[in-house]
């Protein structure tokens, strides 16, 4: 990451993002959010860069970043799958949905499939309890999912990826 053209280009944009923020400690979380939105995850370089900009040691930056569920330290897949495990979804069988997704992808929550197509995340509540159980893929809601319908949903994204390529 540190060498090569890609590394430099990344550094340049990171610099631009950093410049748009002040240097107070209260800028830390919004800055990390912005950076993650840009790169998809927080790399070591980014964490060091953010720390340097704010005058906060990287250890502290890392401490804050690992505290919050939102931050990722591994690249996300092309499609990010969020399985809701809120109370309403739980009562309506979201455990089986999660199992079905894990089965279909072959990865555990927090991981990305080998082909880099899907990453899986468990979220506490997405706030769409009336539609439980809910699976959100890249912001698209799939309501009243059943264990049977999971494979079809994932397949439709694979097809989308194939037709894009």
């Amino acid at each position, binding site marked *: 990451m540190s060498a090569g053209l890609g590394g430099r280009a990344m550094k340049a944009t990171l610099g631009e993002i950093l410049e748009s923020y002040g240097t*107070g*400690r*209260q*800028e*830390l*979380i*919004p800055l*990390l*959010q912005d950076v993650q939105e840009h790169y998809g995850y927080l790399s070591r370089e980014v964490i060091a860069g953010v720390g340097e900009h704010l005058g906060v040691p990287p250890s502290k930056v890392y*401490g*804050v970043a690992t*505290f*919050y*569920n*939102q*931050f990722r330290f591994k690249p996300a897949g092309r499609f990010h799958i969020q399985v809701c*495990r*809120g*109370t*309403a*979804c*739980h*009562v*309506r069988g979201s455990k*089986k949905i999660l*199992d079905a997704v894990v*089965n279909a992808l072959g990865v555990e929550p927090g991981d990305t499939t080998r082909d880099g197509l899907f990453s899986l995340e468990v*979220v*506490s*509540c*997405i*706030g*769409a*309890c*009336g*539609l*439980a159980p*809910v699976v959100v893929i890249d*912001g698209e*809601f*799939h*309501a009243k999912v059943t*264990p*049977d319908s999971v494979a079809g949903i994932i397949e439709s994204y694979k097809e989308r990826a194939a037709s894009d390529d």
Partner: protein
Amino acid sequence: MTEPLDENCADESTRDADRPCLDLLTGLAEGPLRGDRPAGMRVSVRDRTRAAVYVGTGTCGLGAGAGKTLDVAKKYVSEHGLEADVVEVGCIGFCSMEPLVDVELPGRTRVSFGCVTADKAVEVLEAAFAGEMKGESALLQFRPEDDARAGWEGVPFIDEHPFFEHQKRLVLENCGVIDPQRIDEYIARGGYRAFAEALRGMAPEEICDVVTRSGLRGRGGGGFPTGKKWSFALETGEATKYLICNADEGDPGAFMDRAVIEGDPHRLLEGLAIAAYAIGATKAYIYIRAEYPLAIARLERALGDARSSGLIGHDILGSGFDLEIAIKKGAGAFVCGEETALIASIEGRRGMPKPRPPYPTEKGLFGKPTVINNVETLANVPVVLRDGAERFASIGTETSKGTKVFAVSGKVTRTGLVEVPMGTTIGEIVEGIGGGVENGRALKAVQIGGPSGGCIPAEHMGIQVDYDSLKSVGAMMGSGGLVVMDDRTCMVDLAKFFMAFIQRESCGKCIPCREGTRRMYEILERITRGRRGETAADALERFQGVIYLKRLAESIRDTSLCGLGQTAPNPVLSTLRWFRDEYEEHVYERKCRAGVCAELLTFTIDPEKCRGCTLCAKKCPAGAIVGAAKSPHHIIAEKCVGCGTCADVCRFDAVVVS
């Protein structure tokens, strides 16, 4: 979309955002800008001689497919050359009927249709624009504001529909009705008037007093009197104070704050502005979950509009009061709903709570006095000022005033957001408004208040919803999540679910919460684990665990640092209190009567009932089901993993779970 606000109402007017006109809002709402309409008719800035199609595009609407419905509606209107506006509205709260589409024809009442997915949209629109209703396709119609609008025959009015009949909508009055992205629409319905009048004629002390007299209490769970909290901050006399709106709605099962922000963002901003003026804060933060992207977008838009209209910013409406509002996105930590943790998070630190006192009203954000109010609380404030303290206090019970919004979900026929006066019974909400348990199954319990709350068993459905009654049965109001459970929900499994949640979300600062919740989770795990491979030592631990469970829960409750830890054992304590027999069945008989705890179940096929359709054999993930087509099947017990798929898919009820 703020053009109308930039209009100058008279030739000599020089109003702009930097030099606001004091009478702007009155002018907008009563004339001369709106002078051509008699009072009481101002319900919209839209040209109501045109037809309109309203599509509910809140998160839940979009989840149910409202985005595609919206496209179809737009295409339909343009293809047929109709004189009609297509308007996106927020969520009216009737989630199980999403996507919702309303049609308003000139001279007719506004009529709603439920479950209008894209494939049904054209049919619905055709029927509505032709002016004829087929059968029961329409859900309800709105009350006309004057007699000039003709109703639809055979369609119930909104206040006659069982879902809305017993509701009293104050906080949600505009949600799903108005276009949330237009500030002028909010103003046309009397919005920002309470704020303008407060700025013009009320001292901060007076506002605190009105709010105190109204009996408004915090809607986020704690139930602290709002006016009192404001007075504390006002009386500190510090020059710099902060106001924070807590929109970090982390309770699984609650989504009213999201709906208010998506459906009526200006309502929150108005409440926030009034509160800031009342405590003397010039800077306010809205701390909102990053999981709510649509709500954030709507809020940003509303904030921009309010700013460019001179309702937020410098010298608001010429009063000399300044207010800046910043939106802070939460980063996904349940504990940040706790006041001191939320402050730490805004300051850019790990969201860990601090001991109180000092309370945030003395020493909060950046060491300055800070008031933290929940979204629903602030959304009530304009109503309190508009209607007066006495009228607000006339709703509800002795100790709990006003209304409360509940997010009704789970195994109930009609799910959605329900706003009822305090003191309504749980039974009325579940049976009356929610339509009872779906598929005619038996009601077992209602979980209220999220991970900090508790379960209320079916025999206590007569309990009133107010802060104190709920506590008497070991539950709490919390933020108002209400999850209905039927006889197929296992209470031990539910307690385990909550402990897993709390244990994951515990910040780790104090030992009782960090270690204690983990131990409780492990005990529950042991209870629900199967006998396969269990040693005598395991069994002993299982028995021991149950003995310690209650004692452990009580220590965690008494010794944890913050509200999250203190209330963490509630789901276990309340299920132990009401469903002890279920725990005992799990422990002694190794049985889960709800058929949820997979490892405790054995599946067999009733040869009398099995028709040999082979469906279960095809779906079985372990290949444990054998049998020829059209003859009874058999489950090989050694291969069975207990997933329950066969029971779910069987159409003949032939799979026996025991």
